[in-house]
């Protein structure tokens, strides 16, 4: 059986999703924290690297600067002769490998009124050191930057780097230091000492700065020109501002402005060279006013963090997988008996009470459920078995009761009119048992030449016992009447018939049942009626004329069958042609409507009077039945309803004569 999105799915899903969230959170937080820690460390490293590189450059540049400065001091002291100057220059070159050339340039006409340019210059050439005197109409050095700027500023300056064409095609920069002499008490510029310094080492040094894989360093002059840069063609050709302009990079522009101002910062930016995001750390070279920048790519810095996160994530994912397997298999273990139990429950619901139940080995709630279910299955099986037996037994009983009903109805005379030849009277009767069988009965039969016997009775109680008693009572009355009719010359005597019948009924009547009976004999010739009443409702007599319906004044005598030795008397009256006698049991007068009202004797007598002009006995009986049913208005019939109507028509009626 497949249960999509069942309990195990939901269980596993909720546990696993919660776990996944926790794992992801842990991984994310770990990554964040590690990244911050690493970035902080990396930034410190970057700053240190920048500072160390600056220091290394400074450690070379500062001594270099001291050389022209020393020469400048010597010039101010005025101790050197012209030859001394040449010698000094030569010695400087010999002593300082990084100095490619040195010039001591005097103010025009500063050395001698006759000589405009005096600037002994010693430089290295492929053939060895060479010496020359600078200046001339073609080279008016007093207007050159290397001369004019320190002269005007009054302190040493470094020139922009340049490639020296003559001096070995090397990257050079010139350091110019002005020197002074006193003229009329005033300190005046006397000249400028320059040293051409090879910067090849600087380029190598800066280029050798390796940061991770794609990190790099570059050097800017105080005007923003690149001195070194890993990109081909950038050094000396481009400034940081031209690059910023070219790429429309405002951030780079502001970085450049800060760099040439001598700022020192660490900023996050995107490298135009590698296109990577990263951190740029820059610091000034104090002695030159240049600025060194080192770029570290972020992704490479974070590679470690990423690796760490990857490991954490991998571990989390692995743990999650293991957890998932455990949770799913555990929930399957828990749920699978439930599923099998559900299957068994369905089988049981479909009627298979012997459906095998899953065996649950654990001692938990599922086991309890399975046990309860097994108990229920057992109880259900027992119950259904009992029910089947009970139903079968009830069906048998019902079938027997139906047959009993048919038998009971069969022993009542049902042929109407009973004696079509007899024109003296018209009779009709009906019996409606409240249950399948009842205790009411009626009967009628010829009792001799002139006499016609009719009986109505009501056994105490209802159902099968009453039905038995009714059959006995009815049979007995007829038997007694038949056996006595020949003995009585004076005609039949219902009182004595009743006395005998009651005595017979009372004998061995252990159940103490009894029966009310009204038994009457009609003399068809004269209309005389002899009757005996054993505790039965008196019949209603509806006279043929205009008189009111009246209850027959029969003597009150005990019910039949109650005790032995009860004597019944006979009463007698005469019916006029057209008179109707209505016999009934208390099922009529005690019929109840939903408001708990009784049909009652008054209603009965009104009904009878309203039917004075009735057609025949059958119509009378059937209409009374309908009237009672209408009155009950759906309320359950609590007692058998029996009605018998007899209309005396007279001896010489047109319809015929029994005796004829």
């Amino acid at each position, binding site marked *: 059986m497949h249960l999509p999105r069942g309990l195990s799915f939901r269980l596993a899903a909720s546990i696993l999703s919660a776990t996944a969230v926790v794992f992801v959170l842990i991984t994310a937080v770990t990554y964040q924290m590690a990244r911050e820690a690493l970035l902080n460390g990396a930034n410190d490293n970057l700053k240190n690297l920048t500072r160390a590189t600056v220091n290394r450059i400074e450690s070379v540049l500062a001594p270099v600067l001291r050389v022209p400065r020393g020469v400048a001091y010597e010039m101010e002291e005025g101790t050197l002769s012209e030859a001394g100057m040449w010698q000094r220059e030569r010695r400087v070159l010999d002593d300082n490998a990084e100095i490619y050339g040195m010039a001591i340039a005097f103010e025009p006409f500063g050395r001698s009124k006759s000589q405009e340019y005096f600037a002994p210059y010693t430089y290295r050439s492929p053939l060895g050191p060479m010496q020359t005197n600078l200046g001339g109409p073609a080279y008016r050095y007093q207007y050159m930057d290397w001369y004019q700027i320190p002269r005007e500023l009054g302190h040493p300056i470094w020139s922009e780097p340049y490639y020296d064409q003559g001096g070995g095609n090397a990257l050079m920069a010139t350091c110019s230091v002005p020197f002074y002499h006193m003229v009329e008490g005033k300190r005046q510029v006397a000249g400028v000492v320059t040293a051409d310094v090879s910067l090849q080492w600087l380029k190598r040094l800066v280029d050798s700065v390796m940061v991770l894989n794609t990190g790099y360093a570059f050097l800017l002059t105080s005007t923003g020109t690149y001195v070194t840069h890993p990109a081909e063609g950038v050094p000396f050709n481009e400034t940081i501002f031209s690059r910023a302009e070219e790429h429309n990079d405002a951030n780079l522009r502001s970085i450049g402005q800060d760099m040439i101002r001598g700022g020192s910062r660490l900023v996050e930016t995107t490298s135009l060279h590698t296109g990577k995001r990263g951190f740029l750390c820059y610091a000034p070279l104090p002695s030159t006013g240049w600025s060194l920048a080192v770029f570290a790519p972020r992704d490479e810095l974070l590679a470690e963090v990423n690796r760490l996160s990857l490991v954490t994530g991998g571990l989390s994912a692995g743990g999650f997988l293991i957890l998932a397997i455990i949770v799913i298999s555990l929930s399957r273990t828990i749920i699978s008996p439930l599923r099998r139990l559900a299957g068994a429950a369905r089988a049981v619901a479909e009627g298979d009470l012997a459906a095998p139940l899953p065996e649950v080995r654990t001692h938990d709630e599922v086991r309890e459920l399975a046990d309860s279910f097994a108990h229920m299955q057992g109880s259900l099986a027992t119950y259904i078995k009992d029910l089947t037996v009970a139903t079968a037994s009830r069906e048998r009983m019902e079938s027997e009761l139906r047959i009993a009903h048919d038998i009971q109805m069969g022993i009542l005379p049902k042929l109407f009119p009973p004696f079509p030849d007899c024109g003296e009277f018209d009779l009709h009767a009906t019996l409606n048992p409240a249950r399948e069988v009842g205790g009411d009965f009626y009967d009628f039969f010829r009792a001799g030449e002139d006499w016609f016997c009719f009986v109505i009775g009501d056994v105490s109680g209802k159902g099968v016992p009453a039905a038995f008693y009714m059959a006995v009572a009815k049979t007995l009355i007829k038997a007694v009447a038949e056996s006595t009719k020949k003995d009585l010359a004076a005609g039949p005597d219902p009182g004595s018939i009743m006395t005998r019948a009651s005595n017979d009924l009372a004998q061995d009547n252990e159940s*103490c049942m009894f029966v009310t009976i009204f038994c009457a004999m009609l003399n068809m010739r004269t209309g005389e009626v002899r009757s005996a009443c054993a*505790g*039965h409702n008196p019949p209603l007599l509806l006279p043929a004329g205009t008189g009111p319906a009246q209850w027959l004044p029969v003597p009150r005598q*005990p*019910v039949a069958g109650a005790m032995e030795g*009860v004597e019944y008397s006979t009463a007698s009256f005469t019916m006029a042609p057209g008179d109707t006698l209505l016999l009934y049991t208390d099922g009529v007068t005690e019929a109840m409507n939903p408001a708990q009202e009784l049909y009652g004797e008054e209603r009965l007598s009104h009904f009878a009077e309203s039917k004075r002009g009735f057609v025949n006995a059958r119509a009378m009986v059937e209409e009374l039945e309908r009237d009672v049913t209408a009155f009950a208005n759906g309320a359950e019939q609590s007692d058998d309803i029996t009605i018998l109507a007899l209309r005396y028509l007279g001896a010489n009626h047109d319809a015929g004569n029994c005796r004829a």
Partner: protein
Amino acid sequence: MEFTSEKSGAFLLLMVKGRMDTITAPEFEAECVKWLETGEIRLVADLSGLEYISSAGLRSILSTAKKCKAKGGDIAFCNLSGIVAEVFSVSGFSTLLPVLETREQALGRS
């Protein structure tokens, strides 16, 4: 049905209250049988509190009367009223069994 009883001379007086129909009728018989078994064989039932009696009630009374008789005792009824008196009358029970007007008459029997 509710029963209260008291001893009065040779008789046990039983006051009956309620309705004696198909459902409750056996209670009356059971109550009387209970007294019969304790040796009280002369019973007087005061039916002034009885509101209704059905044929099942009559049967119960008849059965009780027979049981009293079998023990050598009897049962008398008094203070019948309304529909109960009518049922006793119509069914002829008033002639079958000793039925008296008042309690004194019932207890004054020989």
